């Protein structure tokens, strides 16, 4: 299933005029996600860039019911919404199904919100959790998170004379979610809107929890040109750094085949957060990034029954 342009909601449920940066990937991810909606829906949004910049009182960018409660509880708040609607439906109110979407950044999902997310997945809550991953705590000023990749410089993993940025690989968030045996889980990138929006719709249509992990570049934190946001979102996939795949009822499927991967340097060199890696003394980190991407890609290919 791929949603055609005609099938997308023509309504702009996510209004322009909010205060997110030019070239903001997460903002694009939110607008696209709502394009995949199939009917009445509510949003539970974790604290983060999207939350603070789209709802500066008395303004709001949301033309759907939207709730922000706290940082780590988007999945738990969504759980309550679903339970509330279910209970009221028994009484005839509301008289139609309402979809529940939870939104959280990588900090709110990989780190502080992981427990609430895991609980909601295990309980089989009927909702879609979308993690918009810009690979650091951008809202508080670019601090490293469990989603920050190896070698990236952030304000708490700076590129120093001895330590070249973050020392650890990115956490395999989707792997953790898949381990809950949920019916639908997928990675996506805002560089490939049809693929992403289709996955959001699939997630909505699944009865039970669905997880979408969408890569959403942040020009401020990645120190990249705002005009390069979509290009970077594509390159992450085309270099095999961020494979696009989905798991439907336990079956893995590669949703974007990459015949001739572009060298990872093409992706890294457009981002200031990786610029230190091109110094000769940190060549080994560059190699480790390359190696890490290769191993992940081959593992995913194997799971999807594809050969390289």
């Amino acid at each position: 299933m791929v949603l055609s342009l005609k099938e997308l909601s023509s309504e702009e449920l996510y209004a322009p005029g909010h205060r997110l940066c030019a070239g903001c990937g997460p903002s694009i991810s939110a607008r696209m996600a709502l394009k995949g909606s199939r009917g009445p829906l509510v949003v539970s949004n974790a604290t983060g860039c999207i939350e603070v910049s789209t709802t500066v009182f008395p303004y709001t960018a949301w033309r759907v019911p939207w709730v922000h409660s706290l940082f780590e509880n988007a999945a738990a708040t969504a759980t309550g919404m679903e339970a509330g609607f279910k209970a009221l439906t028994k009484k005839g109110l509301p008289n139609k199904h309402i979809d529940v979407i939870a939104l959280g950044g990588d900090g709110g999902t990989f780190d502080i919100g992981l427990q609430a997310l895991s609980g909601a997945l295990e309980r089989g809550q009927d909702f879609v959790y979308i993690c918009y991953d810009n690979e650091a705590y951008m809202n508080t000023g670019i601090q490293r998170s469990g989603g920050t990749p190896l070698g990236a410089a952030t304000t708490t993993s700076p590129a120093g004379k001895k330590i070249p940025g973050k020392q650890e690989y990115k956490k395999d968030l989707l792997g953790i979610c898949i381990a809950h045996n949920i019916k639908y889980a997928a990675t996506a990138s805002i560089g490939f809107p049809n693929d992403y929006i289709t996955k959001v719709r699939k997630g909505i249509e699944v009865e039970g929890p669905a997880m979408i992990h969408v890569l959403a570049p942040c020009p401020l934190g990645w120190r990249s040109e705002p005009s390069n946001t979509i290009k970077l979102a594509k390159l992450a996939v085309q270099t095999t750094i961020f494979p696009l795949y989905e798991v439907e009822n336990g079956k893995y499927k590669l949703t974007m085949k990459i015949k001739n991967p572009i060298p990872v340097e093409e992706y890294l060199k457009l981002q200031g957060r990786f610029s230190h890696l091109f110094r000769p003394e940190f060549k080994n980190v560059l190699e480790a990034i390359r190696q890490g991407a290769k191993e992940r890609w081959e593992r995913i290919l194997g799971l999807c029954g594809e050969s390289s």
Partner: protein
Amino acid sequence: MVLHTVKKVYYPSKVPPFAPQVVPYQGEGVTVRRQEVVGYNGDEAVALAVKQSKVDVVAAYPITPQTIIVERFSEYVADGEVDTEFVCLESEHSAASASIGASLTGARVFTATASQGLALMHEVLYTASGLRCPIVMAVANRALSAPLNIHNDRSDMMGSRDCGWIQIYAENSQEAYDWTIQAFKIAENTTVQLPVTVNFDGFVISHAMETINTLADEDVTGFLPSRKPIFTIDPEHPVTVGSLFLQEYYFEIKRQQEEALQKSAEVVDQVAKEYCALSGREYGILETCGMEDAEAAILCMGSTAGTARSVMRKMRAEGKKVGLIKLWLYRPFPVEEIISALGNVKALAIMDMALSFGAPVGALCSDIATILQLRGNNLKIFDVIYGLGGRDIRPAEIEGIFNEALSVAQTGIVKESVKYVGVRE
């Protein structure tokens, strides 16, 4: 200033027999509904109250000594006795968060916790009141770690007392049952729209079997119809809830919230009157005993009041003019009612079942000292810290506190402004 209902309890020389089948009510022209007498502990009594209140969503997470509530309730669910969506969350933080999500759909929501669970919920408590979610939460008060202790004191709720929730303290299982039903009506009143905690002492009430009078299901339904929310997260009328309020707006929101909380005392009072007409049991803001002519008195909350009242009987029989004030409502703090209830008393002992580390006195005493100072009242007071980690407070100790208060009343001298009772030193 309007004073709200203050219940006066008399001190008969003999303890009455067990609770009668139909509770007598002295009010004129009121027929109290017939009630069934059952033997329930506090937790079971609350679970029954939640069932009869036709709660839409129960968000549960186990913690001693609250757990029996969610266990009993899950049996009601398993037996098909309720339509409630019963969700077992993976932490108290998430239980409170789910309560917010459910409450915003317009559902009637209940959760329960104690001790560490309440501490883990701390930030969510402020969100629930800030978003004006009329959630009802039972708190079986328990000590906070470290060192670990599962028994009763009120460190948990006292540590979160500024969270913007209406806070009620019940003396026994009967009160825990009655206040839980009333709490929904208070919380969901559209002029209030605030969450309520019904506190009762862990184990002392939560696990102690007592005879309680229970209303018929239809009588509770009559008293407490379905929730009529003023707004919900309805896709046909989208609202944005929990926005970012910067310097220009935040202060006003908090000021409005405070006003709603302060005014909620009127609703507590009104609901208590309606409930009295139904049940025959008088509730209100606070209860006094012997304050008409008392020279010295104790002010306390929760189960301690029962012991204090029985000690009073003995001391009154000996001709000692002692009195008792029991607060039901702790937040909003009933300033006028307390000042009025003090009457001509010359010394007051305040019972704090929680430490406020490093503070001059315990939290309850601090509130009392503040209101006395604000009114230019020179009443002699002293604080009693007692009962930490489930240490029993015994009649002889209460008698000692009354005698100390009488001595302060006679001499006008407070020897110890903070008195630790029941601790080995």
